[in-house]
C-alpha cells in the first residue's frame, strides 16, 4: 500500500468547478448573480413591498420614486413587486422545463447510444428533426396546440431542449460502453438497465449538468419570448416576458415598465452563461491538467 491518505472521490465536475470558481472571477460573479435572482424570487412574498396584483387607480404610471422604487404600471401595480413575483413564475417554468428535458433527453441519449446500430440511427435522426426547429417556433407550435398554461409552457420549452440533451448524453455513452468495466458488468450478469443506470449515467452526468446550466438561460429567454407574444401564463399573473409586453404599449412615455423586467432577464441570463462557461471549462478534459 502507498502512504496513508484521505479517501477522495474522483474529482467530479462539481469539485473541480468549485476549485476553479475560486480562481475564476467570471464564474464566481455568474454564480452570485444567479443566486441573488433566485433568492429574491423565492423570498418575494416577504420582501416585495406591495401586492403584485393590487391595483391603485391614483398611482397609475408613476415613474420610479421613493415610494415605488421601479415605478408603477397603467393599473397602478408596483413594478418591483411584480418583478419579484414574476421571477417565481419565470424561474419555475424554465427550471422545470430544463429538468424535464434533462431527464428525458439524457435517457434517450444513453439508451440510444448503448443500444446502438439501426435503433440509434433512427432515434438520433428523430432528434435531429427536433433540433432543426428553433426553440421559439417549437414552443409556439406546442402552446398554440395545447393552449397557454404553466404546464403546457413547461412542456413546450422542455420539448425544445430534449434533443440537445440526448446528443450530449449519447456522445460519452458511446465511449463508456466500450470500456471494460461495462463488459465486466455484462460478464457478471448485470441487466442492461443496471449497466446504463448505475455504470454509465454517473459518468455522463457532469456533461449533462453543464448543458443544463446553459440551457436554463435559453429556457428563460424562450419563456419570456412566449409570454411576450401572449402565449405565456395568463394575466394577471406577472412573468417577466408578459411585463415587457404590457409595458410595450407605453414604451415612450413610461419606459421603466419594459426596461426593468428586461434587466431582470438580462441579469439572470448573464449569470447563467457565466456559470455555464465556468462549469464547461471545469469539465473540459483538455483544461483539466493545466
Amino acid at each position, binding site marked *: *500500500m*502507498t502512504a496513508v*491518505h484521505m*479517501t*477522495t*472521490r*474522483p474529482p*467530479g465536475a462539481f469539485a473541480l468547478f468549485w476549485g476553479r470558481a475560486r480562481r475564476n472571477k467570471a464564474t464566481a460573479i455568474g454564480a452570485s448573480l444567479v443566486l441573488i435572482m433566485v433568492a429574491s424570487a423565492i423570498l418575494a412574498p416577504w420582501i416585495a413591498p406591495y401586492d403584485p396584483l393590487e391595483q391603485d387607480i391614483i398611482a397609475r404610471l408613476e415613474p420610479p420614486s421613493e415610494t415605488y422604487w421601479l415605478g408603477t404600471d397603467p393599473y397602478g401595480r408596483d413594478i418591483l413587486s411584480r418583478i419579484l413575483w414574476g421571477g417565481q413564475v419565470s424561474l419555475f417554468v424554465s427550471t422545470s422545463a430544463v429538468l424535464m428535458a434533462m431527464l428525458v433527453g439524457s435517457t434517450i441519449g444513453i439508451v440510444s447510444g448503448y443500444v446502438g446500430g439501426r435503433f440509434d440511427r433512427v432515434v438520433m435522426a428523430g432528434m435531429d428533426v427536433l433540433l432543426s426547429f428553433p426553440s421559439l417556433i417549437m414552443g409556439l407550435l406546442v402552446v398554440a396546440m395545447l393552449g397557454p398554461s404553466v404546464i403546457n409552457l413547461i412542456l413546450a420549452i422542455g420539448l425544445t431542449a430534449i434533443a440537445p440533451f440526448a446528443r450530449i448524453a449519447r456522445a460519452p455513452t458511446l465511449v463508456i460502453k466500450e*470500456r*471494460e*468495466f461495462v*463488459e*465486466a458488468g*455484462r*460478464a*457478471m*450478469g*448485470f*441487466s442492461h438497465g*443496471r449497466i446504463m443506470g*448505475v*455504470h454509465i449515467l*454517473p*459518468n455522463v452526468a457532469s456533461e449533462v449538468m453543464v448543458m443544463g446550466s446553459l440551457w436554463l438561460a435559453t429556457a428563460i429567454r424562450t419563456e419570456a419570448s412566449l409570454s411576450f407574444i401572449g402565449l405565456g401564463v395568463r394575466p394577471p399573473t406577472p412573468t417577466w416576458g408578459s411585463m415587457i409586453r404590457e409595458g410595450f404599449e407605453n414604451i415612450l412615455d413610461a419606459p421603466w415598465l419594459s426596461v426593468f423586467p428586461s434587466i431582470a432577464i438580462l441579469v439572470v441570463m448573464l449569470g447563467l452563461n457565466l456559470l455555464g462557461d465556468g462549469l464547461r471549462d471545469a469539465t473540459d478534459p483538455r483544461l483539466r491538467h493545466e
Partner: protein
Amino acid sequence: MTTPLLEVSDLRKTFTVRRGFPRTETVHVKALAGISFEIAEGEAFGLVGESGCGKSTAGRALLRLIEPDGGRVAYRNEDFLAASGARLRQLRQKLQIVFQDPFASLNPRRTVGQTLAEPMQVHRLGSRDAISARIAAVLDEVGLPRAALEKYPHEFSGGQRQRIGIARALVLEPELIVADEPVSALDVSIQAQILLLLDGLKERRGLSFLFISHDLGVVRHFCKRVAVMYLGRIVEDGPTDRIFDEPLHPYTKALRDASPVPDPRAKVTMARLEGEVASAINPPSGCHFHPRCPHAMDRCRVEYPELKAVAPGRRVACHLHDQAA
C-alpha cells in the same frame, strides 16, 4: 474420459464493417474462423498469438460478451450459447473475466466496496453481512487491505487495481476465469506478483484459466497446455513444455525464437519472420501463414491444412507434418 469443464468447438465470429463514402463497401473480418479447444477442471490453458490474431475475440466470444456467429461452447456439458434469461445469468457466475487494462476495467465513480458488492447483490448471494464477510475474505486472498473498500480506483496503482479486478471476478465464486492479457499492462516486477497471486488461486481454489497472452514467457510459466493462434485459427496446440521445446508448426517456432530467453548464456538465434501479419480482411489463400513461412510448398498456397493430431494431446495444422505422418 472425464468431461472437460469447458469445451469450445468450432467457435466462429466474423465482424462486418461498412466503410467508404459515398460508395460503401462491406468488409468482413474473420476474427475467429472456427476454433476448438477444451479446458479441464483446474487447468490453465494458454492462448497465444500476435496482436490481431483473434485471441481476445475468442475469450470474449466464449463468454458471449461478443455474440459468436456459430460453434458450441459447453460448460459442464451444458450449451452456454443456447442459455438465456435466468439460466444464462446463473452460468455467468461460473465464468468470469479479468481484463488487461486495470484503468479501464473499473468504474471510476464506484468505490472498491461497491464494485465488489454489486455482483453479489445482483445475484442475491446472501445477506448484507454475508456479503461483507465474503468481500473481506476475497480482499485478504488478493492481498488488499480492508481500508481499500472505501476508496476509489484512481487512488490505486496499476498492480493494486489489477488485484481489485481479480477480486471482482472472485466474489461470484467462478470455476473458470478468462484472463485476457492480465499482466501485459503492468511493470515487470508487478507482473510477477500478479502471476504469483493467480498461481495461488489456481492451487487453492482449483480454478481453471483461459490465459490469453502474447508473452510466451508468462504463458510458459502459467499454463500446462497452450494453443497458438494465427489469423483466427489455431495452428498448433498441446502441452506447453513440448510445444516450446519442440515446436512443430513453423509459426510456433518463429514465435518462440522471437521471444527472449532469460539466460545470458543462451545462444541467440535471431530467426525473424519476414513480412507483416497478413490482413484478416483478405487472408492469403491456402495456409494463411504461407507468405511468411520458410518451408512453404505449392500445396500450402492452395489448401488450408487441417488441424490434426500428430501425437497424443498434440495437434498441428501444417502440411509438413501431414507428409511425415
